[in-house]
């Protein structure tokens, strides 16, 4: 093996050129609400919402599992609707409201996940909780089929989903009993 360390002036220029175009110089004028707190991001509007949440706000409960909207580990609520934050750019969130797992506090839903055994490795779990929370807000008494549909954008490789579905049913039952 020969390692040649050569100065490739043309290629160096390319590096600089790419860097120049990708650097964001304008001051961001975006403002959004994250877990009820108004934020003016330092990051460029072309930053993925996921990266802004994790890197700038240190809200690491939102996970990256695939980066292409397949796995749901990065699920957050955007104006109350579940979205994959890896597919949303910060610029799209201007004036909108983002809720992450850290902004959700529903003890009966958490308890249901814990007690039914819906958690194994846990990496997908916050995303499931976000999806389940969105479902139960909109539909407090879902059928098993509705739960499956609502969670179909979240992948879990550990549990076989059965106990996750049971956890959501259990939380729903609790809600309904409480509301009566």
């Amino acid at each position, binding site marked *: 093996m020969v390692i040649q360390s050569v100065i490739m002036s043309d290629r160096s220029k390319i590096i600089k050129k790419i860097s120049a175009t990708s650097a964001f110089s304008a001051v961001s004028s975006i403002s959004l609400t994250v877990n009820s707190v108004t934020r003016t991001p330092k990051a460029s509007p072309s930053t993925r919402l996921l990266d802004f949440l994790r890197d700038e706000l240190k809200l690491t409960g939102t996970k990256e599992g695939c980066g292409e909207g397949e796995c749901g580990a990065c699920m957050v609520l955007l104006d109350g609707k579940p979205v994959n934050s890896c597919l949303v750019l910060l610029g799209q969130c201007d004036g909108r409201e983002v809720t992450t797992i850290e902004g959700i506090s529903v003890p009966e839903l958490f308890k249901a996940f814990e007690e039914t055994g819906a958690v194994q*490795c846990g*990496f997908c779990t916050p995303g499931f909780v976000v999806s389940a929370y969105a479902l139960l807000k909109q539909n407090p008494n879902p059928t098993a089929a509705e739960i499956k549909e609502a969670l179909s954008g979240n992948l879990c490789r550990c549990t076989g989903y059965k*106990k996750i579905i049971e956890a959501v049913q259990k939380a729903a039952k609790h809600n309904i009993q409480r509301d009566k």
Partner: protein
Amino acid sequence: MSDQQKIELNYVGAPVVRFDAAEKVRGTAKYINDIDFPDVLVGVTIRSTHQRAKILRIIVPELPSGVTLVTADDIPGENYVALFNKDQPLLAKEVVNYIGEPIVLLAGANEDELRKIAALIRIDYEDLPAISSIEDALSGKFTPIYGNDGVFKSYGYVKGDPDAAFEASSFVLEETFRTGFQEHIYLETQGVVAFPYKNGVKIIGSLQCPFYVQKGLAPALNLNPHDIVVEQAITGGAFGGKEEFPSLISGHAALLALKTGKPVKITYDRHEDICVTTKRHPSKSIRRIGFDKENRIVAMDIDFLLNGGAHSTLSQVVLARGALGSPGAYKCENIRLLSRAVATNQLPSGAFRGFGAPQAFFAIEAQMNHAAYRLNLNPYSLRKINILRIGDRTATGQLLKESVGLEKALDTVAQRTNFVEKYNLYQRQPKNGQPLKGIGLSTFFHGCGFTGKGEELIKATAAVDYSNENGALIRIATVDMGQGMNTVMRQIAADALALPIERVAVAIPNTAAVPNSGPTVASRTTMIVGGLVYQCCADLLKQVGATPAAKDFAGKAKQVTNDVLTATRDYRVPDDVFWDEDKFIGDAYPIYSWAAAVVEVAVDPVTFEVTVEKITAAHDIGKAINPILVEGQIEGGSLQGLGYASMEVMTETSGKLNQASLTDYIIPTTLDTPDIETIILEEAYSRGPYGAKGVGEQPLVGIPAAYVGAVENALGVEFCEIPLTPEIIHRQITSPQSSQRTRRKE
């Protein structure tokens, strides 16, 4: 462990809620990528784009300051990742053997900048003829990648007189079965951080086996093993994918950390993770099975082949488990078995839940389903005639003395599902355009703990400390990677010491702080390591003169000392366990778990889309220390097996994967998931803690054949490969040669 009878069980057998659930549900559990490491640099890997080639030169642009480059020339010691063999380089130097093989590493503060530099590094190659299949590897037409013949390992034996037995058989069936790659898709991709540390390096990462990393890197880093400190971070799933692979990525991070003098993090995105990490070995089983007039299996001839990819990794032990599973859970006195793991210019295959057994059991169980039909029996009846029971001997001659729940599992799933009635009914169902129903069955086992002499070689050690102030601390290197081990260990120790479970903790798995209880693999953790933890607790009782019945440990301990009490136990293979690896004779495992599974499907007669309606699985795993966690293993493993059987297609063209994302490689979602009914059978194992055996891997093993059997029952056509997709069903039903596989008319 006869004194176990005297212990009052407050936690063992109860659905104790796992202790890490609360932080995981709330998103506060910190995985490796969630932890802030000050001044950490990012590492990026530059990989081979050629399947098999000589590296002629590496042309590197002028590097900006703050960017560090590492090649094989920077490796301080010998350039290999230590495991069974020395064939896997930490970084390729003269040749590359697969697309994705690491060659150059970069570290710097900004990943985007590193990626741009990586794109400018040019590597010139001279291509060599590449080995792209098992058949290529055995053709003799290529220069072998490994050894003289390209075979990583071969096991075989002849038992009885197979030729005479086939001659005397009243029915013989010969078939060839194939299985594809399977990718783990742990939800958290691979990631590690390495730091310069004392006289060596410290590594924190998402991994299953801290001591594997330590041992794997010592020769390459030219360090004493104890100068490589390895700690497991909370791990987001593994399934075998974080057994041996973390040694490679940790080695890369360590090289960069040692050269830069700074912490370096390497994490893969999903694309890189799929493209370069190990997979389940593709397999080919060429099988002949002979029956006598009473439908008893009298002879088997098995050629079991695994595609190991470019480096040997764990192929030899995967092969051993596959070879031991190939005769299935049946009595048979005449067997010829040859098994080989071969080297190809593809991604190295490696550990994956089941470890060779899923491939082997797919072949034997699908063949049993085919044989049942041709013998005018149903799959249940043929198994009733042939399954192993207490007092029988396995293929390798092991006498089954206790804890054999196979027949109970078989009867349970057959009764719960009305198997025989449905099977017969579906055979006669009208083909009128309505969805066609089908039901399939399999019986299987999983040897608990390492194969053969493995446990003897590892010499697992566990320790339990106790102090009046802090309670008990379990110190082991086996890890929680999602299965719930930390909770199970606390249950085992809390009851053994008669302590409240809150007074028992499990130490962070760090090689400097815990003894080597072995890797977290082989369905060994509860039985082997849990057994050691139990024995440590018994020793602590003795040290203070307490007894389990009196529940006086805490009180006595307080009287005896204010210091930390410690008990340490090494695993000893029981004296009456005998295994001859060369001859492949004897007690392949100390004990087995046993299982039967039924899969029920509906097949669309036009599109051949298969809807799986139900999985019913009965598993004899000895005492279920935590039934909820056991159900979780069975449900999750069954679904992973169903994905393997039905939809997880991974193919390659000239060594390049065709499905390198979660968009293209699909795993089951909630909508693909059937109702899964699990039945736990508890045939106690006298040497397991509270009678426990193993459960982690077995649930996956038997699903593929049951799934394929159900599709066959619906369509009246036989299949010999997985994943069995609608495309393959269609191809086979419409192919001109389909008559060869179509069921024999009586």
